[in-house]
């Protein structure tokens, strides 16, 4: 099915504005996507109609809010193909999901001289929590090297694995390069030595069909705001038996079964990991974002984005001084690049002056930038509502910017 992009654009109020007197071209989707009207409506309906605290109230509003909240959990279960909704935990975002695993699973099951494997292309949020854990426990962090195209060396990865490996935590799709990692193979190889696998799905969940049971990953972390949903909300999927074996993360209300001053017993999953009043409004509105994706289907969305990326590659290539960064075979719709002799910040400011929103800098992947010997890149990342004519405008703009330095 080919998508009616004009109609889809009509669902996103934010796209219809001018910045610096030019029509907005929003190419910063890997940082956060825009939200369709249905998500905005869901937020305002919740506060205007259903607002109340969930799970405990004995009244109509609380029942309603609880029902909607749990409906989102079920929708997320379906979205990632989990066996049961109890394996879906709501968090603040990918960052919190990874920290949760580090602070609970990690603290309990990773000890001195155990090894955690990550890749060179991780986001800082999939590096720092493990460094903190390693420091505390005397565990060791191992790094999978990558090639110049920005793909992991699978052979080197296999060499890193041993019975000491307790966890492999790897990004499914790189936010800085777009590389899609061969996670299926990674998971099988890790399981063969008895290691658990966490996938950072922040960038993959919006583009790729994901079924956690087929993949057999042990954890999957992602953020609603990169999926056309609200900010400040994320998901941690974990296999039931692992979640049950993990100690709680935060202590407080919701997560307990019974509290006495002598001893507290904990609630069942997922509530064990959702202490305190959760982000009810955003969870409820997230369902509308998932419905939006479901309506069009990820294969159609990805096909559109792939076409945009291919078109971008083609139109940018002839620009003098254009240096692509990250040229993996398998990519999501991320175009990372530099213009010879220019700082990414300058390029970004000049694009912004043309109404084109991109990201510049290290994209929270400093070790990766170091691997490429650069300070940062300009990153354009495409979503379902972007068009070829927007890509053409960026190519025109870039050609002019590049002439500034590459005369």
């Amino acid at each position, binding site marked *: 099915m080919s998508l009616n992009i004009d109609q889809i654009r009509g669902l996103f109020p934010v796209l219809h504005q001018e910045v*610096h007197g030019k029509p907005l071209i929003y190419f910063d989707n890997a940082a956060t996507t825009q939200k369709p009207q249905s998500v905005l409506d869901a937020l305002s309906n919740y506060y205007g109609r259903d607002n109340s605290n969930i799970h405990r109230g004995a009244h109509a509003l609380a029942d309603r809010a609880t029902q909607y909240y749990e409906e989102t959990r079920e929708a997320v279960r379906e979205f990632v193909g989990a066996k049961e909704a109890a394996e879906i935990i709501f968090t603040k975002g990918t960052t919190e999901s990874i920290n949760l695993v580090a602070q609970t699973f990690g603290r309990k099951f990773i000890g001195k001289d155990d090894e955690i494997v990550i890749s060179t292309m991780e986001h800082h949020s999939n590096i720092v929590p493990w460094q903190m854990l390693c420091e505390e426990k005397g565990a060791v962090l191992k790094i999978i090297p990558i090639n110049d195209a920005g793909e992991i060396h699978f052979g080197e990865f296999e060499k890193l694995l041993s019975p000491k490996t307790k966890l492999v935590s790897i990004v499914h799709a790189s936010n800085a390069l777009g590389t899609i990692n061969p996670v299926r193979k990674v998971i099988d190889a890790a399981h063969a030595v008895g290691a658990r696998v966490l996938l950072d799905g922040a960038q993959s969940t919006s583009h790729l069909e994901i079924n956690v049971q087929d993949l057999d990953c042990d954890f999957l972390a992602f953020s609603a705001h990169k999926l056309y949903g609200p900010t400040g909300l994320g998901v941690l999927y974990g296999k039931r038996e692992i979640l049950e074996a993990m100690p709680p993360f935060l202590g407080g209300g919701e997560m307990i079964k019974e509290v006495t001053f002598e001893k507290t017993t904990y609630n069942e999953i997922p509530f064990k990991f959702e202490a305190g009043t959760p982000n009810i409004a955003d969870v409820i509105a997230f369902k509308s974002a998932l419905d939006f994706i479901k309506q069009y289907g990820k294969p159609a969305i990805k096909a559109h984005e792939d076409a945009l990326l291919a078109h971008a590659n083609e139109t940018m290539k002839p620009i003098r001084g254009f240096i692509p960064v990250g040229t993996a075979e398998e990519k999501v719709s991320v175009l990372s690049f530099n213009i010879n002799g*220019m*700082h990414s910040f300058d390029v970004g*400011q*000049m694009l*912004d*002056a043309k109404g084109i929103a991109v990201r510049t800098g290290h994209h929270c992947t400093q070790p990766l930038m170091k691997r490429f010997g650069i*300070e940062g890149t300009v990153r354009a990342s495409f979503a379902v509502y972007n068009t070829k004519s927007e890509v053409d405008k960026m190519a025109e703009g870039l050609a002019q910017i590049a002439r*500034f330095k590459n005369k």
Partner: protein
Amino acid sequence: MSSIKDIQEEIVSEFEILGDDKESTVFYIMELGGSLGKFPENERKEENIIKGCQSKVWLIADDVDGKVHYQADSNTDITKGLISLLIRVLNNRSPEEILNAELNFINRIGMGSIIGSQRSNGLSAMIKQMKLYAFAFQTKQNA
């Protein structure tokens, strides 16, 4: 030599000609960056980097016959352009003049909306460092 006030007026009217067009403004600032004098390679070191700027900014100052002589550089052209404006206003003046200078041109040309609020903070850090140098030379001169 024109006063600090006059030079600021000059800059404001130059930017007024560019009007609201962010594109020409950004290009203009980057062109200005090119006019920044060459920075001594041996001074491009950690202790001369100004903290609080997003881009790298190196700043040094010398006391030349009682006047403060600044030299600066950055890894981004836009920042270089901004520095060149500051240097144009403050260079080769007495520490007193620099310390008493009221730099209003930055707000008047709407720099916040041109470079974004984080960069504006960086600009403030630059000004503070320039004034700190002036203060140090003043203290030395009065000693």
